[in-house]
């Protein structure tokens, strides 16, 4: 029986696409042991094909009746490989300009950030925004249900979904079932790997690396039922933070403040406040109607602050004290001294 659920809110209106989150995660968790190609945290330019490539079309999750939808396992190349380069050959090979620093092996056709800053629309009504993603630590994890080894479990005390790598046999049904395609295969060890929501940090009172290291102050963290947390205010009280692809039926616990965008230009070259630069249909396809409702709420509150009034929602999003973003998980990790017990 689930007692509590940790959740994250990502404010897309503060994200600059810098991938500090990706690097923070990479440096901590996926530097070795067959994890080199993994990016448990990704950031993609939207609209785009994303990571893994075309993941939104790879199936998984549940349909409206709660039945598992068919899915397929993303191929390694669709995530992108851990490219190796020929530094030594270029620097010391003695071949002058005949050799270039290049990805070794086959020329890459995709990578974790391949379609960075391409986006959509038609100039000058071009548009794009950044979508950072981690495992959603779903309330109804499709991966968990799909695992014949029962190697995937959801912790009662915090709702973190983990692959028990000691039980996992690498069957990869989870990769097929996860509609967000956030599970990787560790070929070296024959197990599935994915975001662990920085459990070792979280259990010591420290926010996840992706949240704590985000310079854009994009990510809020905390228990969903903690009425004092920013996460609670944004998800439950103000309902401006909504899940991505709710129709996948897994009940994600990562929520997004949907993206605003600059005013569109009309045919006469005027700013057209009635027209959304990001097409509403596109936003609806990502966040459902709740996403558009969230934007309406946000716009109404921003109107207040422009008129000089105050807004609890806006103050939460701004967060005067950075540490208030983390629902009490605000311990400074460098104050820990590890001692042999």
């Amino acid at each position, binding site marked *: 029986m689930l007692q509590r659920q940790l959740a994250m809110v990502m404010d897309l209106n503060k994200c600059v696409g*810098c991938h500090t989150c990706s690097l923070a995660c990479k*440096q901590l968790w996926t530097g070795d042991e067959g994890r080199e190609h993994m990016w448990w945290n990704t950031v993609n330019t939207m609209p785009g094909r994303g990571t893994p490539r075309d993941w939104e079309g790879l199936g998984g999750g549940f349909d409206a009746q709660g039945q598992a939808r068919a899915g397929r396992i993303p191929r390694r190349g669709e995530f992108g490989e851990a490219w190796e*380069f020929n530094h030594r050959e270029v620097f010391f090979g003695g071949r002058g300009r005949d050799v270039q620093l290049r990805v070794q092996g086959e020329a890459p056709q995709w990578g974790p950030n391949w379609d960075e800053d391409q986006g959509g629309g038609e100039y*000058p009504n071009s548009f794009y925004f950044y979508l950072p993603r981690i495992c959603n630590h779903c309330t109804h994890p499709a991966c968990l249900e799909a695992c014949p080894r029962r190697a995937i479990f959801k912790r009662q005390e915090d709702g973190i979904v983990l692959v028990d790598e000691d039980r996992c046999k690498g069957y990869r049904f989870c990769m097929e079932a996860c509609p967000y395609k956030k599970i990787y295969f560790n070929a070296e060890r024959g197990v599935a790997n994915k975001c662990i929501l920085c459990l070792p940090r*979280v259990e010591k009172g420290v926010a996840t690396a992706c949240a704590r*290291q985000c310079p854009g102050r994009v990510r809020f963290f905390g228990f969903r039922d903690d009425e004092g947390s920013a996460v609670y205010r944004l998800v439950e009280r103000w309902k401006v933070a909504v899940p991505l692809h709710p129709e996948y039926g897994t009940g994600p616990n990562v929520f997004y403040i949907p993206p605003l965008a600059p005013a569109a230009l009309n045919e006469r*070259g005027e700013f057209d406040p009635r027209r959304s630069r990001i097409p509403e249909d596109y936003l609806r396809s990502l966040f459902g109607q709740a996403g558009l409702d969230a934007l309406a709420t946000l716009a109404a509150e921003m109107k207040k602050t422009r008129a000089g009034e105050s807004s609890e929602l806006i103050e939460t999003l701004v967060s005067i004290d950075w*540490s208030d973003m983390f629902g009490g998980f605000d311990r400074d990790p460098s*104050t820990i001294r590890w001692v042999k017990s």
Partner: protein
Amino acid sequence: MAVGAGALGAAGVSGCGPRAGQGAAGTYKGALRDEPLPEGEDFLSRYRRRWTWDYTARSTHFNNCAYQAHCAFEVYVRDGRVIREEQAATYTTKRRGLPDANPRGCQKGCGYSELMQGPARLTKPLKRQGERGTGQWQEVSWEQAIGEIADKVVEVLAREGSNSLVMDIGTNACAVTAFGAAMQLADATDCVLLDITAEIGDDMQGAAVTYGSIYQARSADEYFHSDLVLCWSGNPAYTQIPNFHFLTEARYRGTRFVVISPDYNATAMHADYWVPVRPGTDAALALAIARELIEGKRHDEALLREQTDLPVLVRRDTGRFLRESDLKKKGSDEQLYCWDEVRNRLQAVSTETLALGDLRPALEGRFEVETLSGTVSVEPAFERLKAHVAPYTPEAASVLCGTPAPVIRELARMLGEARAACNVETLALGKFHHGDAMMRAQILVFVLAGHLGRKGAGWTAMADAAPDAVGTAFGMRRARKVASKLDRRQWYELIRDQVLGRPVSRRTLQGLSEGWVDARFATNATLFWNVHGGVSEVSTRHWDEALPRPPAEYVEQSLARGWQLLEPPKEHTPKIFFQIAGNVLRRVRASQKLREVLWPKLELVVVTDVRMSTTAREADYFLPVAGFYEKPNVAYYTGSMLNTCAAKAVVAPLDDSKDEWEIYWLLSDEIQKRARARGLATFRDRRGETRRFGDFLDTYTLGGKLGRKDVEKLCKRFIEDSTNLGGVSWEEISQRTYAPMRSQGRGPGNGSATDWTEEETVTPFLRHTLDKQPWPTLSARVQFYIDHPWYLELGEELPAFKEPPKAGGDHPLTLSGGHTRWSVHALQRSDPLMLRLQRGEPCLYMSVEDARSRGIGDWDRVEVFNDVGRFRVRVKISPAMRPGMLMHYHAWEDYQYEGGIGSRVVAASPINPVELAGGQAFLTSMASMRQPGMSDRDTRVDVRRLER
């Protein structure tokens, strides 16, 4: 917050409070608490063990990341190896009611340990074996490398003097260990030192001539006091990552955010309004806004009368200011006039104060004045401005700049109605050929609308303040101790008096103490590359059809008249080149010319760096430098946070790498020894004076005060000799990694003309607007009118729109560029981790339309070509790109391009004559400004698809 980790139970906090000896940490972060090392062999225990360490220590990355510099990090060490880094996030500076600065950082900083220990890092001294650039190296000992370099230096210095040795201290030398040590070596050798600010395009020429300064300390959180913020050039979502949250948060709080750029970019997505503009034509947009403001009577007349030169009278016959020398014999060329409407008479413009008292300088009208040569008709500069902007109706400007006319009107309305509007500072405009004019025009519209020197209001160029020992700590022999505890105006007057051959004024004398003032401290790098490096072969071709005279003529005249300095003189050949923390063969526009023309003349090329750069590949010796965590250091550049950053070494230098202080100490020592061994006693310095080799090490070590291993003492002195850091000790700042700047301090740097407290955001120019202190310009006011003959000749006396030159020939596409998200200059360009989040190699952004018309598909190989060169690259197609423009983010190394030919090969970088102008005090070149720069954003090219 009540709930948190404690509630988790599983492995709750079992620490027992701080241990003895941890008291010091308590002053800048919480006390250390013990936690048991995770045990067990299950998968969770394995994960838990990954997140353990032996110790952490603070450091930062002493990059030149400009506005976003620098961020405090905790470096995590296990088994003597840096395992990762994470922001310290203990910034306590908090302005009244505004968000704090935490956590700062970016992906480059959070991935630095990979760069430090990965395949891009070099840690052994190398000596070239085959031809330069062939990649044939031998690892050699320090003794051999230093010995052979010293031998060559001795030989060349003794034979040809200091003028034969040239040093480029590159963009990454913004901390004491690289910069200070190099300056001392420059002091000992008296080598030619290149002033690179203008060359790299950071010169801010428009601000230099308008405000008299390019530095204005404005804190990154000033946006909260603005109700309108314009990002008009640049892409701060790429280049100001740790500061950007202040923008998004200010926007939430009610600030309207407008982005003006040719491409829809990562910054534009966060705007309320994005304004498309044709590359390089922003001045037309600005002049139309100026016209709308004036037509709509939305200009701030009181501000213009008091703070600007717009009431200053201009002769209608010559276009020159009316001067005292027009009115009386032996009258001053610097005394200007306005027309007092109260008394209806001519009034001398005060250079002592801006306070008008009961004067009311006319902005409009025409007046007759009796001069030595008869009656002359004069008018305020504002009258000329009105006439100048009159043709720029929104519709007419729209044809020039591509911005829809209704949008221009809307922008003018927003600026006119805003309570306080400011810009986002970026370093983009200096990279345009007419960037100075674009900048002057931008400043014009802000000031017209009344946005100057108020909380949240104003256009500023470059946030900078420095620990004030920077003026006195290094290079003092070179600087010849002359100046200064001067404010900007005194500084201006010092130079003015030198130019006019007058004795130093009493007011200026009051400020004189110590510091550097020497026009020959460093020489403009653009001119050096043009004259000695062969760049003039492309830069002085007639790219700009509107130019009345051949470009080379302006260069020759400027040098002949002494308006600009060139070292060594044209006839003296450079023989030795030291590259320190820089990468000229990557950096310099048209750098292929350097390889063709300069390199064959060089008998010795030495590069000190942490990695293999394009320039290092073409060196004779590579000396490996200790990385950021491996040596003590102090940043002297503060960025928009106005913090000074410092750190001690976290780990020892990797392998054979050494800190720069030790490297040049060894070199200085060896030079002295080798000279003695060869019986050589003296060499001639740049002034032709005799110097003794026997003094070499003494000069380098500041009179023998510092030993080979004393780099930390060097840093400590720098911190503790600075008076504007609130008295912070070396121990305190190096443990915490930062200390807030308390003021601009001593020295000539106070272009901000402001004071501040910790509780308030930092607002520049308050001394002008509140205390009525004069500006350091000819008119002692914000200077929009420049009556230098060359400005008049070129029609640039007022901020003008000029069609961008067809740099590189008449080709259909404009190749634009910008600082990349993924690297600070070239530092991370060969870092595999960063490359994996791109496409692994250079790429060129292209519009959908231009790609379609050329049959180019995404990721196709193309050739980019124009009249001066061609390079090959792969293409990324994006609807965010404006048709007609290409975007190639910078700093890829040549060895990342096919055939080793980088994108600089198509940059023609035309010389802009107005940047060569001089002979007037306020146009006189001084460090970092009013020098000719290089440009690349107007490069014209075409693109063809290569075989798939």
